[in-house]
């Protein structure tokens, strides 16, 4: 600890990275997958018809449906189909006192008929997992935030300790064993640093009200709610008046809202007290036209007269800055090109964490190469590495396979898709414990290669929406998903092959000649 600043930071970097490195790998991987959550959901519910109808048509269809099925409800919520969301969905809430129901239904925006796709969480599972970690509220978020803070410390200490950060900026020397792994760790770390810093810091900001409430408590004491009202003023919902009123046709209001020009396109329409004289219609925008995330920007209309009642005021500068952190992290605004870039950067971050963990084990394995076994802590890290990296890939593949193999009408199938994910992840841990390090890596990666590579085939065998059809119809989401799985399979196959090969050459070069024959036979 007394050896100097750089060395102290090297120690800090190692430990901050090691403590929750496996969790961070999982968070980064699932978060990266979440950038394509809509496309994933689309692949996992191929029954939802793809329609290109205008937003106004969808809204009219939804309104008719709700007027028939939920006329007495206190609130309606209509989610319009968008560039990245198929399917029109409606939700309604029962009125107080009336024996109504609350419900939701997916509709075909062209015909207005009900759509019943297979029950699944789709891409939302990865999205939710990466900040809730499948733990009850609020523990998962706390753990994810702690991991984020450790990531932040590891990033900055890594930058400080990387003496040759400028000299080695363009350096990457493949085919040199350990040196290449280190170069690779530097490359995906340094070259993508703006993204890593942004994603880490923004993740802290996104949970700041939960993890750093001291300021709110000091200023607002018992009235924390007042803080939210002051920071993000919202339009008041007018209560029902009890007299009937004819709800206007919503489509013209939609047109009016979209013409306002700010906040992007309308994504959600809420109707408060439909059928009442005091009905109000709140249009919420998707905010996809700007980087800064606009917390709930809305415009409100009177439901009977159509008069514009309210619009969310401009957010203050600090709130806009916080909003920019939210927006940059989530990337809602990203066009297809930028979205792929987000994905690539996320993979780079995942690789940065993964290479770091592997390098740590590799360096210490060298020291113990001649001894019979590995010390406990080294074996622990090695096993956790395998389970959290290749094991996680297997779990993801299982999730997709379960989606196609579980019967469509099966009750609780979405729960079982998730169960499959965790069961296989657990099995991969067992496998890693039972097999020696290198063999475990090769076997798991080879299986992952098989599972991912076969996804297009699985899709073709279990649904009519196979790759040939999706390519012919230029269905980007379906085709892209199948192809991405195929590419992943090829990558895992290549990785497994490389590790197997390097295992052979290493065994030959590090053992003394006399035992070489015996070693080769054992391998």
């Amino acid at each position, binding site marked *: 600890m007394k050896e100097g600043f750089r060395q102290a930071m090297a120690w800090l970097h190692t430990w901050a990275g090691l403590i929750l490195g496996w969790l961070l790998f999982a968070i980064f991987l699932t978060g990266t997958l979440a950038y394509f959550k809509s496309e994933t959901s689309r692949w996992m519910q191929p029954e939802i018809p793809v329609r290109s109808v205008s937003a106004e048509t969808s809204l009219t269809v939804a309104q008719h449906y709700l007027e028939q099925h939920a006329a007495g409800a206190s609130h309606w919520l209509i989610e319009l189909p968008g560039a990245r969301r198929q399917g029109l969905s409606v939700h309604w809430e029962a009125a107080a006192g009336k024996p109504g129901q609350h419900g939701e239904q997916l509709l075909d925006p062209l015909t207005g008929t009900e759509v019943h796709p297979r029950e699944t969480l789709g891409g939302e599972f990865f999205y939710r997992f990466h900040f809730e970690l499948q733990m009850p509220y609020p523990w998962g978020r706390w753990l994810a935030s702690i991991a984020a803070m450790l990531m932040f410390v590891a990033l900055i200490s890594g930058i400080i300790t990387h003496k040759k950060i400028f000299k080695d900026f363009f350096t990457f020397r493949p085919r040199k064993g350990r040196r290449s792994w280190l170069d690779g760790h530097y490359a995906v770390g340094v070259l993508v640093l703006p993204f890593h810093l942004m994603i880490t810091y923004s993740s802290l900001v996104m949970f700041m009200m939960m993890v*750093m409430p001291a300021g709110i408590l000091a200023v607002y004491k018992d009235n924390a709610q007042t803080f939210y009202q*002051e920071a993000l003023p919202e339009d008041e919902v007018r209560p029902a008046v009890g007299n009937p009123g004819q709800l206007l046709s919503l489509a013209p209001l939609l047109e009016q809202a979209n013409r306002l020009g700010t906040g992007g396109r309308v994504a959600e329409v809420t109707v408060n007290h439909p059928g009442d004289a005091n009905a109000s219609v709140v249009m919420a925008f998707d905010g996809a036209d700007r980087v800064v995330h606009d917390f709930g920007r809305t415009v409100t209309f009177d439901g009977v007269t159509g008069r514009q009642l309210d619009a969310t005021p401009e957010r203050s500068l600090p709130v806009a800055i916080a909003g920019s952190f939210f927006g940059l992290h989530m990337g809602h605004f990203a066009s297809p090109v930028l979205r792929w870039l987000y994905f690539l950067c996320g993979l780079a971050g995942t690789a940065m964490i993964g290479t770091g963990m592997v390098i740590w084990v590799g360096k210490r394995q060298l020291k113990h190469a001649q001894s019979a076994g590995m010390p406990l802590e080294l074996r622990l890290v090695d096993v956790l590495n395998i389970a959290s990296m290749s094991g996680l890939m297997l779990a993801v593949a299982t999730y997709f396979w379960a989606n196609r193999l579980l019967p469509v009408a099966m009750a609780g199938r979405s729960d079982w898709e998730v169960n499959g994910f965790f069961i296989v992840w657990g099995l991969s841990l067992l496998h890693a414990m039972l097999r020696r390090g290198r063999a475990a890596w090769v076997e798991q990666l080879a299986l992952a290669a098989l599972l991912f590579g076969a996804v297009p085939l699985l899709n073709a065998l279990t649904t009519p929406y196979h790759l040939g059809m999706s390519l012919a119809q230029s269905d980007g989401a379906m085709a892209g998903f199948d192809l991405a799985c195929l590419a992943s399979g090829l990558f895992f196959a290549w990785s497994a092959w490389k590790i197997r090969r390097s295992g052979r050459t290493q065994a030959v070069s590090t053992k003394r000649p006399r035992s070489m024959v015996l070693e080769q036979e054992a391998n």
Partner: protein
Amino acid sequence: MNAKPRTLPVSYRLAVASRVLAAVFGGYLVAALVSVSLSLWLPGARAEAVVIGMMTSFLVYLLAVIWCFACASAWRAWFGLMVPGLMLAALAGLAHGMGRP
């Protein structure tokens, strides 16, 4: 690390543990105190001050953690956190006494 002895002395382990405690808990405390001070003292709307305070606190936490491991001894780690901590607490108390915001 280069010349580590086969088994680490207990004093080393205690020093590391002390620094870790200082960084994790002391650092959080100092970060929280900074956010409180900013929330109470920044001019303008109080909600805005609170938001700025929260966003800034993570940078402070980072600096505190780095300090705890970069400084020459575990004692310095704690000292280096307590001094600003007390000053910030005094600032916050002053604001409270003055009836801000």
